[in-house]
């Protein structure tokens, strides 16, 4: 049996036994749009069509993408906090204005937020058994990556603060390079690192906020998008009198 769908004259046919394993984010989104088109037109796809391998593939795509976004936000967070604490230069100045501080946070948050908004946009497709299942598995990967990021980054930043940058240990470590660096450079590096040290504690808590955003934004987006699509479909069915009812 084949599932059929498509809009504006295009037809999408997929064999039921075929494995669906999106390789990347774009492929996963396209696959979800295909499922949606089919289920929206009232052509129900059997639940078994979405195999266990397919579910894992969607989960993997979400998880890998989530990890990439998480890594970037973890790296950028100490920069943003460092700018606010006047330890790092932004736009070439070490004395940031209010706008500069705001922009440092915007840059640190933007990749995670943008990524989360991309997933939030899937809300408009959140109907039908297969489409819902695909979106759920994709998001499960993203949420797991966000949670792992939050916990690991929290621990890592505390480790950096309490262990790696502990004044005595740091001093001993830097003294090993005394043969390499001359003049007052080593005391300057030591002092700068000690001044930068508290930034990691603040960053640990900031990362928890970004992790929460990575989960909350898609959840809110899907709740809103789903409601809008259902309303639009109900109106469409009312005015056109079409017999085709979507699978909810």
């Amino acid at each position: 049996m084949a599932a059929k769908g498509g809009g504006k004259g295009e037809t999408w046919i997929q064999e039921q036994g075929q494995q669906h394993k999106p390789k990347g984010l774009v492929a996963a989104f396209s696959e979800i749009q295909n499922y949606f088109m089919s289920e929206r037109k009232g052509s129900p796809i059997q639940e078994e069509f979405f195999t266990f391998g397919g579910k894992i593939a969607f989960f993997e795509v979400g998880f890998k993408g989530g990890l990439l976004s998480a890594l970037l936000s973890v790296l950028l967070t100490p920069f943003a906090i460092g700018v606010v604490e006047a330890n790092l230069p932004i736009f070439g100045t070490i004395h940031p204005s209010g706008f500069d501080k705001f922009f440092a946070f915007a840059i640190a948050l933007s990749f995670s937020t943008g990524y989360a908004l991309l997933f939030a946009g899937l809300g408009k497709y959140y109907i039908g058994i297969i489409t819902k299942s695909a979106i759920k598995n994709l998001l499960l990967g993203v949420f797991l990556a966000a949670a792992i990021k939050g916990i690991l980054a929290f621990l890592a930043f505390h480790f950096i603060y309490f262990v790696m940058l502990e004044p005595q240990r740091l001093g001993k470590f830097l003294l090993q390079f005394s043969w390499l660096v001359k003049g007052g450079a080593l005391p300057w590096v030591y002092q700068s690192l000690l001044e930068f040290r508290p930034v990691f504690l603040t960053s640990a808590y900031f990362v928890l906020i970004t992790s929460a955003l990575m989960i909350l934004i898609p959840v809110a987006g899907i709740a809103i998008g789903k409601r809008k699509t259902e309303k639009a479909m109900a109106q469409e069915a009312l005015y056109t009198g079409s017999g085709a009812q979507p699978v909810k």
Partner: protein
Amino acid sequence: MIEIASICVASATGFVDKLSPLSYFSQDGYAQGWAFITRWFLTGLWARIFAVLFLISAFWQGVYRQKIVLGIIFFVLALIITYTGGIFGKMFWWST
């Protein structure tokens, strides 16, 4: 054979010499040129304007139009303009 090889080496050396910016500018002039570009693009008002525009473009392309690669490119450009001003500033303003 040796003549051909020596001609090849000489022309290669000439080409490498032409690549060096110090064939055309003095060291101070070269550093000042970069300092000017750095100041103009990576610090001050223009840097802030470019950074904001690139960040907005990143969201517009990456999220709204779902052109993820283009979104990432704009994000990286915003990131470069925001944070590299200090590094380049130290490299070129100290040397001039």
